[in-house]
């Protein structure tokens, strides 16, 4: 590799300006990019206290000469580009020559490196961007950059950091993205000295498994057209997740965000996606660097295509083809699963209407219902309830008819139940005869550690079983049999989304749990189930709106119905 030099004034002006070090995760990203640009085959990321006390990246790449290492923390010092022409065809992840300068200005940095042309290593200590000490050290192939006390001297910046948990989550997201972007490298992540994750060089498929978890099966696409080489993994229709977390686009090894590409994929799925369902996709695009501009934003994660139309149509087309192709047909075991539907058998559900009725008498005294929607207005008998489209519960009330959305109704009930767990004794926990083993992705795992205590109080009994593997030993009583794994994964997904918006911890857990465990629209309910649902709904503090603010009950008055009929 060329040696480091300062960019000319002209070049400096051509480079998208702006701050790149906004949080520990961005430091990790820049350091890892440098390691990758140095041609490393092994990379270790160490983090302490969610990055504010230490972020350290060690690689086995080319290293720097003493001369270079003294220069590398200067602004606009880079070995990667020299002139305009280089800027038009960027082949490295870095090119701005600013990262080390910006990072070292707000931290205490130590760089230890050794270049193959030298028989001694160099160690440089910097504080607030100034070189404090230069030492000769024993040669060791590669480079270690440690960043300590990030923003310690800049309280204004430190104040903007989120909770340690959030910062750690961002860090893990960066790591996970980097792992996916360069699957052929040995990656190690160490958090607080112990929690280590080691990802050996693997096939891309295995790597995807490491990062995404084993829960979904993906369709593989490989196409080379118009000078582009595209390799992609996308989820089957119906296998989507509840957040956008598992959507990645890599262009020439760089993770990028591009609305137009996401849109291309989404529109290929079209109505194959349920409401609130997001496909999983990992796109690897290899293309001529001259046809894509990464010098758009200082973070280097936005790109502009010379021919956006072409790329858009291409991605959309190959996604559509794949979704139409034979790969979409689920595996045999999934077919057997589906086939069972003819055999739906509910041997153990004895209708309990009679017992419900006997409870009625008792409940009216102790727990009076809200006056405005009483089903019992002057009625002795239990009102008739109908379930329509396995989605709404319909009943006659004095003023007309009332329609209840079964899913949001149950959501409200469960939501309040969880919030109650926060204060008082939690609900029971059904032990499972066959505990369920779950292999989690890095993300899911770290979310789980974050909310495990809450999950336990709600009634999940989880046991750790080696790295990223948990065993579900018991579940809350509300969870339908057989569904334990999926519900837990969905809760983790959903929680991350909620939490991202800065909600209260318990509130976020309660919302996720309620949303994921509630009966779905499409589930058929027995009469006792419907009556019980309605009883419980009116025992909640707010029976009319679900935790997300959607209405639960809609009344249709007789006048309104009459009016429609032109009476």
């Amino acid at each position, binding site marked *: 590799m060329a040696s480091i030099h300062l960019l000319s004034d002209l070049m400096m002006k051509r480079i998208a300006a702006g701050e790149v070090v906004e949080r520990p995760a961005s430091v990790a990203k820049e350091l890892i990019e440098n390691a990758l640009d140095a041609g490393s085959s092994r990379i270790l990321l160490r983090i302490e206290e969610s990055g504010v006390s230490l972020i350290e990246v060690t690689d086995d790449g080319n290293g720097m000469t003493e001369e270079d290492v003294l220069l590398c923390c200067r602004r606009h010092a880079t070995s990667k580009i020299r002139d305009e022409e280089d800027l038009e065809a960027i082949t490295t992840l870095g090119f701005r020559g600013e990262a080390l300068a910006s990072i070292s200005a707000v931290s205490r940095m130590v760089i230890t490196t050794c270049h193959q042309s030298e028989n001694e290593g160099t160690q440089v200590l910097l504080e607030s961007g100034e070189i404090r000490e230069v030492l000769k050290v024993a040669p060791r192939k590669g480079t270690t950059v440690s960043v300590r006390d990030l923003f310690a001297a800049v309280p204004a910046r430190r104040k903007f950091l989120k909770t340690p948990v959030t910062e750690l989550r961002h860090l893990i997201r960066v790591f996970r993205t980097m792992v996916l972007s360069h699957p052929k490298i040995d990656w190690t992540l160490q958090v607080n000295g112990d929690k280590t994750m080691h990802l050996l060089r693997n096939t891309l498929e295995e790597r995807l498994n490491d990062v995404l978890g084993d829960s979904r099966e993906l369709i593989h696409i490989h196409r080379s057209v118009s000078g582009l080489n595209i390799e992609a993994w996308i989820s089957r229709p119906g296998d989507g997740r509840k957040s956008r977390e598992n959507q990645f686009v890599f262009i020439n090894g760089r993770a990028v965000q591009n609305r137009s590409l996401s849109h291309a994929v989404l529109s290929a799925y079209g109505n194959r996606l349920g409401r609130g369902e997001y496909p999983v996709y990992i796109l690897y695009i290899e293309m001529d660097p001259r046809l894509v501009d990464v010098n758009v934003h200082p973070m280097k994660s936005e790109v502009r295509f010379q021919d956006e139309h072409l790329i858009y149509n291409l991605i959309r087309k190959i996604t559509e083809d794949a979704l139409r192709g034979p790969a979409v047909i689920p595996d045999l*075991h999934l077919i*057997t699963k589906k*086939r069972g539907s003819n055999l739906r058998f509910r*041997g153990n559900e004895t209708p309990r209407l009679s017992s419900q009725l006997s409870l009625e008498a008792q409940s009216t005294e*102790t727990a009076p219902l809200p006056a405005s929607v009483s089903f019992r207005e002057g009625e002795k008998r239990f009102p008739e309830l109908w379930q329509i489209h396995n989605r709404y519960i319909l009943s006659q009330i004095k003023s007309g008819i009332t329609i209840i959305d079964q899913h949001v109704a149950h959501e409200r009930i469960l939501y309040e139940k969880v919030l109650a767990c926060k204060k008082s004794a939690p609900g029971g926990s*059904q032990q499972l*005869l066959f505990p369920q083993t779950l292999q989690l992705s890095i993300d899911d795992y770290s979310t789980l550690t974050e909310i495990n205590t809450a999950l336990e109080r709600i009634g999940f009994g989880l046991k750790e079983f080696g790295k990223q593997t948990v065993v579900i030993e018991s579940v809350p009583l509300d969870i339908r*049999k*057989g569904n334990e794994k999926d519900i837990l994964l969905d809760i983790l997904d959903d929680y991350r989304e909620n939490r991202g918006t800065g909600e209260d911890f318990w509130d976020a857990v309660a919302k996720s749990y309620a949303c994921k465990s509630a009966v779905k629209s499409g589930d058929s309910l027995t009469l006792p189930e419907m009556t*019980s649902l309605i009883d419980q709904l009116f025992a909640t503090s707010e029976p009319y709106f679900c935790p997300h603010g959607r209405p639960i009950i809609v009344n249709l008055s007789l006048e309104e119905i009459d009016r429609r009929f032109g009476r």
Partner: protein
Amino acid sequence: MKFTILQNDLLEALQRISGVVPTRSTTPILENILFELDEEKLKITGTDLEISITTGVTPKKIEQTGSIALPARVITEMIRSLPAIPVQFELDETKRVRITTDQGYYQVAGISRNEFPDNPSLSEARSIELKNDLLRRMFSKTIFAVSSEELRPALMGVYMQIMPDEFRMVATDGHRLSKIIDSSFRFDEAGIQMIIPPKAVQIALKNLNEEGNIKLQLNQGGLCFIFDNTTLYTRLVEGEYPDYEKVIPRDNDKKMVVDRSLLMATVKRVSLFSSALTHQVRFSLSQNRLAVCSEDADIGGEAREELNVEYNDEPMELGYNAQYILDILKHVDDDKVVFTLKNPVRAAVVKPLSQKENESFMMLIMPIKLNSQEHQ
């Protein structure tokens, strides 16, 4: 095709197959019943592709053989509403069937026999002969525990294991399990195991005679029951049955013996006051006493009853789904039931105090961990 048959004979036959004919299917031909007439017998068949039943009935008079598929609902409803009189069926060249009684006629359009799915072939099937009463007993002691959830397909059936010197059946839904073994059984060939869908088990239970033997035919993926007049074919559930022996606890060291009908009545009453969604009840065990309690916070209901039991161990609080307890008690024949326990999160093993000769019958029930324990 032309024949005359007595209304009640035909109705009886139609009712034998009505359970399998889907009322609404994406394959409309399945909403039909196949009529096949030879020189001696009328055979009628209904199928949902998973299960098919063919049953034979003898008409009063056969004039011309033939076959046709007719809409199940209309035919069944019509025959049901007739009095016990002779009914004549006659098929014309345009595939219409005219059904004539002395009161009038009805005409329906039929569908060619060729469009009706063929009965699965049972060539290369293995034959097994079993005692009717044994099969009935084993089925009825297990079917209640079959899972109804599609997410774990292998659990959606009764697991039948025929071994050289014993005959077993097991069913579980992951919350409870039932296992019955007949050890007087002998079988000369290599062992066989299969997972039978519950719907087929239920139909078989209806058709099994009190005594005598029944022949089963088994091939790749399918099982056929050959009853007197009726054959029932079912596809078997695919997949591997979980290793149930592994989850049966062997070191439960605390024992409670209780009167079956007393406990059943108690749980039934107390559970009326438990939540209709969770059916949770609590067992408080102490020296020779069991208290069964429930509460439903949502409606402010609460109940508690005490009964005498035999129990000589430390006090324990256990949570159960009352429905599961009732299901289990229902299937014990003995007056006394034995619960063996270990702790509040371990499966309880439930058995009759005295087993039938050559039989070993046990059930498992997973408890509900109670909230109070978390704070102890």
